[in-house]
């Protein structure tokens, strides 16, 4: 899956289509409640008109009082609708957000290990957090304000027409005019605010670059250059933003003026009919009131634009992940059903592989067979395919050509390059490897991984908190804990992906010795930078540009393999012949 940042032109409705079946009915119910609430709002002026024209003008106090009571009753009923739609709106927006978050997280967890996730976890996190919040806010707002505004407008127009069809003809002129202005504004506003968002992103890029490079920038004394760059970005943002906001400032006064002139026209028409002998002040007052209601409703609608732009961008970013292809079930692999905790073999048969979305093969036609209990080293330059090979061997990735025969996932333990510990204690982290391990097993694994000494050195020992809010571990300590965690799994196949790079050479040598003496003698695949790390392996596999160059003992390779000899030379400065 390819993750793009920002505002791709993926249509937002895909998210709508996905969740409509689930939340469509309650959503509709809420909108109906909003409609009823709006209906109560627009009933008020009509009752007022009756109160004034029939009660007051005809001098009937009883009518005045009953109509006032009706108005109070309608206000009360409106309140009930308002309270219930508030309940539903809150419930739906939160449930929907929780559901989307859950689907997104499940999707992320269930899919194959992904290069994008490894390279750019921040982008995924933004989707899981900020983007979902945006959508939630939009949903919530939609059920409160965005639907109420048009419903209120429609209701007010309807009631006004019923009240006085003659005056309502005026609305036929004003409302389309206002709608025209709004449509134009929303159309243009969308584009303008997108520019603003682009410039904002640009500013953030410049600033993030500064933050990540602050050491280099200071060392090279290039601060003033960066200041200029930033000033330009900030200036552009202000300019685009001013343009967008200026555009928007015209809308409010323009719409208000139109509607207000409509009110003047209503009064003038009232004047005409009064001269003709038909005078109903209540009608006039109510009609003016409807005009004001329409005005407020339409003004509210203009505020939607901004939220809509943001929610749409967020929705499309979420959809991108949700719509990414899931994990296919490959038939190119065979999981051996070995007994647990027994050394297991690994075989590649003419395996080719490329990363999803990648352009070229990173593993090309690789075949080898590793026997159970063997200690295999893998060396090669960066980009030679070592990490991809590890991912394939673990079953995180699947070949697009050839086949792999490997033990079941539960019999493999891998120690990755970049270690992650989780909030908790040292003990809870190590228990990841084997949830039911007892203290003796924990100590044994820690010992073999060279971690026991420093764990015992902590005041809280095994209960020392790590991760968020815990102690700060050095890179080497983390790597040793990661190794201990893998050893606890008592794997049949142990894969070490350059996983002792931060451990000093002495400790590393001790760890290597301990690994060879592990109970159950698991098969060990060790990817390394240093030749010294693999020199004592049973066999060493040399990779270059995705191809298997050679497979043999250190001695054999240092005689016959040119690339291997190159590596030795670069690391020791000695000719391999002299070793």
């Amino acid at each position, binding site marked *: 899956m390819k993750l793009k940042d920002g505002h791709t032109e993926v249509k937002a409705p895909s998210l709508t289509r996905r969740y409509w079946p689930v939340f469509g009915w309650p959503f509709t119910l809420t909108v109906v409640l909003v409609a009823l609430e709006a209906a109560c709002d627009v009933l008020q002026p009509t009752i007022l008109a009756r109160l004034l024209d029939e*009660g007051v003008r005809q001098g009937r106090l009883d009518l005045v009082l009953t109509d006032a009571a009706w108005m109070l009753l309608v206000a009360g009923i409106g309140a009930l609708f308002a309270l219930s739609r508030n309940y539903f709106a809150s419930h739906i927006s939160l449930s929907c957000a929780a559901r989307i978050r859950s689907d997104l997280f499940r999707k992320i967890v269930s899919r194959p290990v992904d290069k994008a996730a490894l390279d750019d976890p921040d982008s995924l996190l933004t989707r899981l957090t900020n983007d979902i919040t945006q959508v939630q806010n939009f949903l919530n707002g939609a059920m409160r304000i965005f639907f109420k505004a048009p419903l209120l407008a429609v209701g007010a127009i309807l009631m006004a027409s019923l009240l006085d069809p003659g005056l309502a003809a005026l609305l036929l002129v004003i409302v389309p005019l206002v709608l025209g202005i709004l449509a134009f504004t929303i159309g243009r506003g969308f584009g303008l605010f997108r520019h603003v968002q682009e410039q904002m992103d640009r500013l953030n890029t410049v600033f993030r670059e500064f933050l*990540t490079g602050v050491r280099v920038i200071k060392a090279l004394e290039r601060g003033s250059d960066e200041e200029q760059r930033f000033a330009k970005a900030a200036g552009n943002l202000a300019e685009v*933003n001013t343009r967008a906001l200026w555009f928007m400032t015209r809308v409010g006064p323009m719409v208000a003026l139109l509607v207000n002139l409509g009110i003047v026209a209503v009064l003038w028409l009232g004047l005409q009919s009064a001269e003709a002998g038909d005078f109903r002040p209540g009608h006039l*007052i109510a009609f003016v009131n409807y005009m004001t209601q329409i005005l407020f409703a339409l003004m509210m609608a203009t505020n939607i634009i901004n939220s809509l732009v943001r929610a749409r961008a967020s929705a499309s970013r979420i959809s991108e992940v949700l719509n990414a292809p899931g994990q296919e079930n490959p038939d190119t692999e065979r999981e051996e059903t070995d007994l647990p905790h027994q050394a297991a073999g690994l075989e590649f048969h003419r395996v080719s592989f490329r990363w999803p979305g990648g352009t070229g093969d990173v593993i090309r036609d690789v075949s080898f067979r590793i026997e159970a209990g063997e200690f295999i080293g893998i060396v090669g*330059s960066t*980009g030679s395919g070592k990490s991809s090979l590890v991912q394939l061997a673990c079953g995180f990735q699947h070949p697009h050509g050839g086949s792999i025969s490997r033990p079941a996932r539960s019999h493999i333990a891998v120690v990755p390059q970049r270690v992650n510990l989780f909030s908790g204690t040292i003990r809870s982290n190590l228990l990841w490897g084997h949830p039911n391990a007892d203290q003796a097993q924990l100590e044994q694994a820690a010992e073999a991984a060279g971690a026991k000494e420093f764990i015992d050195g902590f005041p809280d020992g095994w209960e020392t908190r790590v991760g968020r809010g815990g102690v700060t571990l050095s890179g080497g300590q983390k790597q040793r804990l990661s190794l201990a965690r893998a050893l606890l799994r008592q794997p049949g196949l142990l894969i070490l992906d350059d996983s002792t790079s931060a451990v000093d050479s002495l400790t590393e040598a001790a760890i290597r010795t301990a690994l060879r003496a592990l109970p159950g003698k698991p098969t060990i695949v060790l990817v390394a930078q240093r030749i010294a790390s693999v020199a004592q392996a049973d066999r060493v596999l040399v990779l270059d540009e995705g191809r298997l160059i050679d497979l043999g003992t250190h001695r054999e390779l240092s005689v016959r393999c040119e690339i291997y000899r190159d590596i*030795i030379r670069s690391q020791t400065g000695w000719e391999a012949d002299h070793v």
Partner: protein
Amino acid sequence: MSDVKRGAGRFMSERIKPKKARATLRRLLGQFKPHAPALVAVVFLSAVSSLAALTAPWLIGRTIDSLVTPLAAAPLLLLAGLVAVYVADALVSWFQARIMTTLSQTLVRDFRQRLFTTMTRLPLSFFDTRSQGDLMSRMSNDIDSVAVAIAQSGAQMLGSVLAVGGALLCMLLLSPVLTLAALITVPLIFLLTSVVSRQTRRYFKEQQVALGALNTQLEESINGFLEIKAFEREALVLGEFDRLNLRLRQLGFKAQLWAGLVMPLMNVISNVGFALLAGVGGYLVLNNELTIGLIASFIGYSRQFGRPLNEIANTWSQFQAAIAGAERVFEVLDETPEPADAAGAAVLKEPRGQIAFENVSFGYNPGNPVLKDIQLEVPPGATVALVGPTGSGKTTLVNLLLRFYDPTEGRILLDGRDLRHWQRASLRQGFGVVLQDTWLKEGSVSDNIRYGRPGASDAEVEEVARTVNADGFIRHLPQGYNTVLHGNGNTLSQGQRQLLAIARAALADAPLLVLDEATSNIDTRTEFHVQEAMLALRKGRTCFIIAHRLSTIRQADTIILIDQGRILECGTHEALLAENGRYAALYRASSLS
């Protein structure tokens, strides 16, 4: 350390109440000083607009009355007045909004630039102790909320206050009794909003905590994705996620429910006021104490009264966010910048490169020394290699050399002069630096190399690239030297990025050189080819190398073994082997025999 901090600070951008609201507000207002004329114009215009808004209901009421009792006033004149008022109102509020927009955008731009400029002058320790996410949010969210406050809240608040006060005055003048009827609900508004907002605040705070917990778990899970897969912990992680997600949903629901009450309550209360106004007004008209037109005016005023109250409540929370945001921005602006150069500090020009550490001790935090009593003499042109386990203090030593930090005790001499007595800029220009974490900027490949020396010609850039063996891969890029790199050069491999960083330092052609794990990500075979270039680079320059691979540093003039902030062993490769101490043991472990 930074990992942990980054995560924690990232999403929990706590937006609690500002701490020193009054002082911050005063300072924020101080920013407006240069823009006083514009501000006065805005205040004046919003007063005019409020006045116009107050005249309209009165005119409407008079018009209706003129229909009831003809000849009371000329209705056409009243209508013409109404048109004039509406047109004036539209024009004035448009002008006002334009001025306010320009003003706020200018202020925000200046504010951003000042924040950035301040940051470029802050010492490295500032960046080391703060998470990137935190600083990013100060630059974007916090300043944005200040912008919103300036543009909207400021103008709106003023307009609202004028509208409320004016409407109240007009109503009282027209009919005190009807005013009472229309406004009897107002205390109810205040009571309800205070209850609602107390509950809302409480649940929002709880929701924030739940959100923080969930985000922490999400972050850990995504960063530890490989581990989850490798240890088949999917089910457990999902279970934990569901628990946290449910909790967030429940608390969020409560917060939203309470927050959502404000609008309907206001609406109901204004409807009740409307009904009371109609009933009491009708009764008064029947008793000939009022004209019917007055009811129309009152409806207009009470709407004007209710709406701004709503807005004031709304803008108040925006305002609080703005003050909190401004406070966080001022916090950065108030940081102490790197101290100015000492009086009489000299400009470093063509240094010989003799360096001496005299009893240097240093700690990032008091009471926790990272370097202890370092004594070191480096003759000009010598190469010094620093060896030691992670966290032993190697990088700290480099930090002191570049004056990212100053020693807490002792001093460092360059050409016999304390580092603190060289002008900092010239000192740093004297060093070529290649750091472990290679940083590339957005721009073309040649821009990136040229970053080391802005004036360099294309030919010089390519020449340098050739000497460090980067020319080959650069020519294979889609547009060669003009290929544009995005997002810290993610399209390049780690090794390629390091080669570019080396080329950048080589082009800078500084007399002193610091290589902090400069080749750690270049695979050993490629490094073999780079070695020659590095040797050429080091020739005649005093050079500090930090490296993990012992092979990289064998030829150094002096090898220094550091552990826990102290120099344990010091000498040439051969001498240290002969000494048969820690270094010799390390070396044997990493070599083949």
